[in-house]
């Protein structure tokens, strides 16, 4: 079966986010009044697996091995059948 996973990798809370700060400034430069911006990355991954649980396990492994660095990142995975 094919599943579509949405993986969001974001900095741990409290971790300084220089990219978010830069985006915040840029938005303020465009004339908005923005208080706070945090940047995260979203990966959309299509994957074949026998069950949704297996797909979740595989995605979790991918996150630990490549997509997130445990020292600074948290990740969330949502899996749906396609």
């Amino acid at each position, binding site marked *: 079966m094919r599943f579509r996973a949405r993986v969001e990798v974001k900095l741990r809370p409290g971790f300084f986010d220089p990219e978010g700060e830069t985006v915040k*400034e*840029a938005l303020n*430069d*465009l*004339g908005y009044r923005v208080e706070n911006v945090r940047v995260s990355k979203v990966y959309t991954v299509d994957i074949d697996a026998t069950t949704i649980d297996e797909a979740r396990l595989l995605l979790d492994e991918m996150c630990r091995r490549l997509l997130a660095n445990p020292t600074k990142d948290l990740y969330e995975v949502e899996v749906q059948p396609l």
Partner: protein
Amino acid sequence: MDLPFEIYEVDLIGSNDDVLMKISIEMGIGLNAEEMRYIKEYFKGEGRNPTDVELQTIGQTWSEHCYHKTFKGIVKTTDGRIVDNMFRSYIASVVKELNPDWCVSVFEDNAGIVDFVDGYAIAVKVETHNHPSAIEPFGGAATGIGGVIRDVLGVWADPIANIDVLCFGPLDYDYSKLPPGVKHPRYLFKGIVAGIGYYGNNMGIPTVSGAICFDEGYVGNVVVYCGCVGILPRDRYLRKVRPGDSVILVGGRTGRDGIHGVTFASTELTKESEEASRPAVQIPNPIEEEKLRRAIIRIRDEGLASGITDLGGGGLSSATGETANKYNCGAVIELSKVKLKDPNMRPWEIWVSESQERMLIASPPQNVARIMDILDEEDLEAAEIGRFTEPRRLKVLYLGYTVADLSLDFLFSPPRAVRTAEVKEDEGGEADFDFAMPNDLSSVLLRLLSSPNIASKESIIRTYDHEVKGMTAIKPLQGLRSGPNDAAVMKPLPSSWAGVVLSCGIKPSYGKLSPYWMAASAIDEAVRNNVCVGGRRWALLDNFTWGNPEKPDRMGSLLKAVEACYYAAKIFQVPFISGKDSLYNESPLGPVTPTLLITAVGIIPDVRKAVTADFKVPGDPIYVIGLTRRELGGSEYYRILNVKSGLVPRLRPSAGELPSRIIRAIDSGVIMACHDPSEGGLAVALAEMCLASGFGAEVHTSNVPLGEPMREDLVLFSESNSRFIVEVKANAEEEFCTLMEGIPHAKIGYVTKSPTFLVYGFDGKSLVDVNVDVLWKTWRNALTSR
């Protein structure tokens, strides 16, 4: 005809002028009525109507961006003169008259090429990317750098340095004054700087030279100049394409991004541009281009190819047409072989797409397999998409069906554009009115040092990698105090001490007062900056950014500036080797400030002899060379005092003598430091030499050689051209003065160990007295706070 894809025949033959113009607009090809009529006549002769692919091809090839209609056209002046081909009459004629044997290729290839040493040559190109950067600053600036790097790769040169010159509106511009569709200078500034750094840093090409200017005239029209310098072995400049050679398209896939970039660049920005033009901006991928670079250099070194060109404006349509035309042959291209990002693209879209990071390589058929091997090893995609042919026609197929078949003679002889130039007397500004001399010149000096045009650009320069490749011998920021330098020096060959010297000249604030003296001053400044570090045998690049040339006042000032280029280049006996113009820079706020960027590329036989601007030894005498005149029109001093009048600095024939004298003095080792007074005049230049070193200076205005009598403040802040400030070795004054014989020069003071900058007036009273660390912090920190 029943075809398995969409293609349209466009009825030109049966159309009147109104319909012709409608077609031009609807297809987005930006051609005028006369050009459309000319096309109609051609197809009448062919006995058929054109396809959409053919009309697109013509639109791209004849765009201002690709063909430079204005520079190559006919200019009629309102006082009855006719200039036939401004480019040939003024710009290109300099190199023709001087005919230097060290020019390898000028104005004919993707980049200008001059000789270097040990069988190597230097290739250099500077481009504008104003329109895309105004719409999408990050992507526009990044692809500007990417494009100019491909120009250098497109003459088989390996890039060694990037150049960027940017002009913005004031960063504190009032938001409420911004017209709809125009983005705030601060937003553009951040995005453009980030885009330039992104591309150069990712590709590992050091950004070593440039400038940043601020002027109200850039609020509606931001200006982005991107340059690249490369080197190549002279005998590897492969260009011998023959009929039968294969056409290989290499690099990124072709997509819908960047369609109609060139016609977009050749029209004015309007409120609608912001949304409508977004697809015209391309997506940068520097890593793809880095892989391309590797492959191209390997193909070059193995001597496998017969020609190369980059895909820039006009995409495949321009690249194949221009290559075939250059080698006096034709080409047949099969569009279905092109690797696509989106399989549903129509033939004309494939043909004109300006997707980035693509190059066209021509190769004898027997070498194609080896080339493909190299490309595969570098993880690059490629496709053999056609052949060069005997007949001088450009033939385009899609799935075997002919979708375009054009005579190259027709395609490369568009009707000459005719422009009208309004002639105004260019007096170079008005005489000054009298105003009281400010009491406190120390605080005026500090205000000047913190003016955005003068203040350190360190906060930007440090985001550009200027050390990668390990070739940067003289850096954009000097020493541990990060002082200013006049030019960068690259040492590209491990086996030779020879260096490439890069500098630029740009004078936006003079442009509105006198386009003629603005252009002449830019050339003087570029040459002087080069000389200051020891650069010689300069070659120049010209990049014009102007308003709509179809408006006679804009055309008039453009013609003036072009004439000045000839005048100034002849004075220094320096050829133009490459250039690019960007016209139609108009916005709801009016035309862009007329701007000419001059890039100078010099050489220095031994980088160990290079000189920097920072003072070196306390006790050394300081000399000024050249005359200071009452020329403050457009000066930073008048800007901060809000004085609107004044004469713009002139360039006199006697200036031609100075560079060779300075170079001789540098080579004989008597010059310890050298700097050119420009914005802010002698006072700012001296202050910079102090703040870069930590040493002080004691100087006397009464000793400054003057062209005419004037007040002390004008002596200090005049921006007269053709002047140098030098620190002379203490025991070598006599030798130095012998070298300067016959040229105005005078000792104005000494370098001091005590870190104070002291200036005395005519009567010996103190005019300026500032601690050097205060100068340093003022200059260094003015732009860093956001």
